[in-house]
């Protein structure tokens, strides 16, 4: 039964635009969906390898900027008078290149920053995101700096001569986001349910023990960082083409915090965690907006976060699983293993 749940959820989600005609709520689903994808990417690192990357938003932003710039074109003079001119390309190539560039940055950052662990790793990743933000802010020629990249075209699929399909309407964009979310989910679930995933869990649990059985820890960390950055980049690309404007504020620490909250409250190291946490924290502002003043909305957000961590330190999904397990009286292992077993 359990293995069909994601499909049921997917079908349920796919039906949303059919009965939900409120564009504002649909808009909330789309932006929440984008942040769920980003949170899933963070979960791959945090939940499965145990590395907390608080600079995840850098990859999100790099994906957003790359995709936007590829589809808008740019004209930049590099050091030494080399001029790089890029004519606009179709948007879908922008999205793909955004993913690749993000993944590549993930590789570089992974190579460098996995030399340190724990709190140092956390601060190093924050520093990275800050540097990227400041580059986006100050390299005006490329990024327009604080003037923002505007008029970013909507996502269009197709090839010259074969016709195009554009994702301009909210409904179609919802399905695009849902599709990317499903693909990311599949990638992550296959990865963590494989030998690779076991290696990641091993190094999260006990790094020395993992290397002693011949697991090359660094290469798996870097692999996780690459996949994670690529998925975050995809989310960033979707964000840029949905909002149609990006400025260096996409690198704000707040966005990373949003992702972390979604992952940790939902349940890190579970596939469903970021989805559940994402829906909750994506919709808290939507609900609280109609009841309380602006500052109080934030205060509720913060208090709710603390309460969830206090009451359910492992997250909502593991707690629900445990509750069902105890109700069934049958022994059910912890979430991580539960998923690993799904593959069997």
């Amino acid at each position: 039964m359990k293995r069909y749940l994601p499909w049921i959820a997917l079908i349920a989600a796919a039906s949303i635009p059919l009965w939900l005609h409120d564009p504002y709520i649909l808009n909330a689903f789309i932006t929440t969906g984008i942040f769920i994808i980003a949170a899933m990417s963070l979960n791959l690192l945090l939940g499965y390898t145990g590395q907390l990357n608080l600079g995840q938003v850098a990859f999100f932003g790099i994906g957003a900027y790359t995709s936007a710039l590829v589809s808008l074109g740019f004209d930049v003079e590099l050091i030494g008078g080399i001029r790089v001119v890029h004519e606009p390309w179709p948007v879908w190539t922008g999205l793909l290149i955004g993913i690749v560039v993000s993944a590549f940055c993930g590789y570089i950052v992974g190579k460098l920053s996995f030399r340190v662990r724990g709190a140092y790793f956390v601060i190093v990743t924050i520093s990275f995101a800050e540097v990227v933000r400041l580059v986006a802010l100050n390299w005006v020629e490329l990024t327009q700096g604080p003037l923002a990249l505007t008029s970013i075209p909507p996502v269009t699929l197709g090839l010259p001569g074969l016709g195009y399909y554009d994702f301009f309407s909210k409904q179609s964009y919802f399905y695009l986001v849902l599709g990317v979310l499903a693909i990311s989910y599949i990638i992550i679930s296959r990865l963590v349910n494989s030998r690779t995933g076991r290696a990641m869990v091993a190094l999260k649990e006990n790094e020395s023990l993992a290397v002693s059985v011949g697991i090359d820890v660094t290469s798996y960390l870097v692999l996780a960082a690459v996949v994670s950055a690529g998925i975050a980049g995809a989310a960033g690309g979707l964000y840029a083409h949905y909002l149609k404007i990006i400025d260096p504020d996409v690198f704000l620490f707040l966005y990373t915090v949003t992702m972390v909250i979604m992952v940790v409250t939902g349940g890190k190291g579970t596939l469903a965690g970021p989805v559940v946490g994402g829906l909750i924290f994506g919709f808290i502002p939507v609900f609280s907006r109609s009841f309380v003043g602006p500052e109080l909305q934030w205060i509720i957000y913060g208090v709710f976060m603390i309460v969830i961590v206090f009451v359910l330190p492992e997250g909502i999904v593991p707690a629900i699983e445990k509750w069902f397990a105890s109700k069934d009286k049958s022994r059910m292992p912890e979430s991580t293993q539960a998923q690993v077993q799904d593959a069997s």
Partner: protein
Amino acid sequence: MSVASVAKAQPALSIEHVAVHFGGLIAISDMTFTVNEGEVVSLIGPNGAGKTTAFNIVTGFLRPTKGTVHYRGAPLTDLKPHEVASRGLVRTFQRTSVFQSVNVFENVMIGLHRRGRSRLWDTLLALPREKASERELRTRASEILAMVGIEHRARDLAGSLAYGDQRLLGVAMALAADPSMLLLDEPVSGMNATETARFMELLARLRGLGMTILLVEHDMPMVMGVSDRIVVLNYGRIIAEGPPAAIQGNPEVIRAYLGEGVKKRARGS
């Protein structure tokens, strides 16, 4: 028993003039010994004598300040731990020997990492090779669990096992990594007499398979029972080396080590 191994007498692991300094502290001053193919050698000595440090040197967790380590003729000194493991040298740990919050079966599956054949693309695209490889690993994992005798606990969290079973699982994981030589760090600490006896049987079976074994252990009856040779460390240097009988009678060993009373480690500590 010792006659058989002497007949082989092919050095597998050789440690030459290894010294380890931590800042001003000398953990090992000068250590030289070899372990032959198929031999069971025990490294003993009082606490702080440098046994675990020696293990860390051999398995790449520490770099020696001086000296070299070779396995089957190839130098190990500059290898990373996982590279050492892929040369066939696999160790167990004294304290944290298993992945606590993962179940027993998955622990062994993690141990089987090196034997997996699937590549990243196989995994992501769910290609047949992925499935085949996984099936193979699962079969192998069951076999290994049966071999160490904890197959009935396969679905339990490793952290929920009794201490003795955790040690067995640690060995199972090490075996899963396909070693030609095992380095066991106090494998029977925390085991009761029955468990220890069972473990000694397991060791005997492993040596029957031609496995080379280096053992650090405090349990003297066991050391005396299973070892072909014993190396005694004290204050970072070797003070005696030889077959169990010779060590038992060595006055320096008695003074340095046995003299303070044969300490069995408190069980379950």
